[in-house]
């Protein structure tokens, strides 16, 4: 992929978007194919897992219309993992191990206050305070637990970011240098204000 790596087909600096510069050409095509075929490996841990189940499996929210396909048989087939719930120190090695099994490019949504920062268990002796100590996180969903709509919003925002990615190897490695997305955060509010 010499052309893509060299940036000849990607990264046309047409108009900088809110989350970055939109990709063009083959990059655009690859990105939009990837963004609508995310296989989500769900890591249901605690209360948030029920809300994630409501977002994925209930007729009211139905995440599949966004192009997210839940229930791959194994993390080796997954592109996206949703860490939903409290991560304890006993559980953390298993999460790291399964994350390592996922093929690149892979994305992580940290759902709920416990996965973000420890949440109500910020002073507990057995809880890992933030999953981002173990694996890199793309989107944070605050809330205890977040509503299913918030998870859907996180997926949509992640898809927007995927659309803006370059597809060269070096850009893939630099993916985590960007500011993390927070659902309902200042960046999203600014984007909302710019739209209206």
């Amino acid at each position, binding site marked *: 992929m010499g052309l893509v790596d060299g940036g000849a087909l990607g990264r046309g600096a047409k108009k900088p978007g809110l989350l970055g510069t939109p990709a063009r050409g083959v990059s655009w095509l690859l990105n939009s194919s990837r963004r609508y075929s995310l296989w989500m490996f769900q*890591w*249901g*841990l*605690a*209360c948030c*897992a*029920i*809300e994630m*189940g*409501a977002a994925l*499996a*209930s*007729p*009211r929210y139905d995440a599949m219309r966004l192009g997210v396909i839940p*229930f791959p048989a194994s993390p080796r087939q997954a592109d996206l993992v949703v860490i939903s719930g*409290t991560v*304890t120190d*006993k*559980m953390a090695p*298993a999460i790291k191990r*399964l994350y390592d099994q996922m093929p690149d490019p892979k994305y992580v949504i940290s759902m709920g206050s416990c996965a973000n920062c420890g949440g*109500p*268990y910020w*002073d*507990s*002796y*057995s*809880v890992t305070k933030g999953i981002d100590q173990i694996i890199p996180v793309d989107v944070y969903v605050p809330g*205890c*637990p977040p*509503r299913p709509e918030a998870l859907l919003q996180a997926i949509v925002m992640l898809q927007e970011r995927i659309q803006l990615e370059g597809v060269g190897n070096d850009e893939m490695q630099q993916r985590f240098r960007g500011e993390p997305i927070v659902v309902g955060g200042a960046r999203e509010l600014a984007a909302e204000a710019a739209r209206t």
Partner: protein
Amino acid sequence: MSTTNPPEETMPDIEIDPRDLRHLADAQMNVELDTGDMILNLGPQHPATHGTLRVVVRLDGERVISADPVIGYMHRGYEKLTEFRTYPQITTLINRIDWLSSFANEVPFIDGAEKLMGVTAPPRAQYIRTMLTELSRIATFVLFLGEMSLQVGGITPAFFGFRDREHILNLIESATGGRFHPNFNRIGGIKDDLPWGWLSETRSAMQKVLDSCDDFEDLVAGNEIFQARTRSIGIIPGDLGATYGVSGSNLRASGVDWDLRRDGAPYLVYPELDFKVWTHPDGDSYARYMVRLQETRESARMVVQMLDQIPEGPIMAKVPRIIKVPEGEVWVETENPLGQMGYYIVSKGGTGPFRVKIRSASFSNVSILPWLLRGVYVPDVITILASLYFILGDIDR
């Protein structure tokens, strides 16, 4: 388990029909292959275990020799955390023990703190508490009614379960502001009165629940495949279950007629209600399904009863602005959706308790698993785990 050939001299001297030689060859091969035990890890993350329970199953072929639940993957240290929180803050925490029926978790703790303080909530507050408890029981059970069929391969009822749960969560949210962590109880009453129109909304939602219970009975319980997978599988004898500490619907499905709402120390407004405690004589997975199905209906009927009876009046007793609980000890137990839930609160007179012991239902319910899973087939492990219906936060706390 290694099988060896019998010694040569004890082999019976029989005529062998040539037609049987093939079978003999098969048998010989089976003897020679050393069928060692296979150790299978269910979990810690497995779709069938409702969270992060890990069951280490030792198999001989398809049959389970031993099963050891490994718990602690969701241990969050509640009992230690309660020592550093004030009473109103603890209500926030204990919502999250059994996260499917959060409101029911608050009730025994608040009840205990009120007993220590000598405060009684006004009747209207008690009614609202009871209604929300029963609503959270329905929300828990309709999810079970759908998910249980998911574990035997029927996907559609799971969607029905989530659909009905949303009806209930709408009601809880409109009354308390939280979808399933309401944090609505205060010592001496509840936070807010019911919103306008809530009673009529609830009445129509209860009708929806009763209708969908009929659906579940036809679609799941009446299904031939479902019955074949659950009938006479995972039988818990009543007395043995009680010895292990199994409680709630799991014990009532074994024919033990014991419900703390009726038999325990009176709490909330249950003495004023007319309800039936459902039992089932069989004690298998199917009985547990049927008992929960009937209890969902019974809870819906109880909510409708309370809608008719709810009195007017204040919702908050007179309590000081800063809650200080006098010195003392109290044990309060209630009938949660998953079983008996109790708090032993030790207060040394301060804004927070000195020590809280939490007795949660699921921990005792899964303690019967090593006994129950011995000798069953691997596919039945999944249905038995599903039919026991535990919540991991309730096991590990």
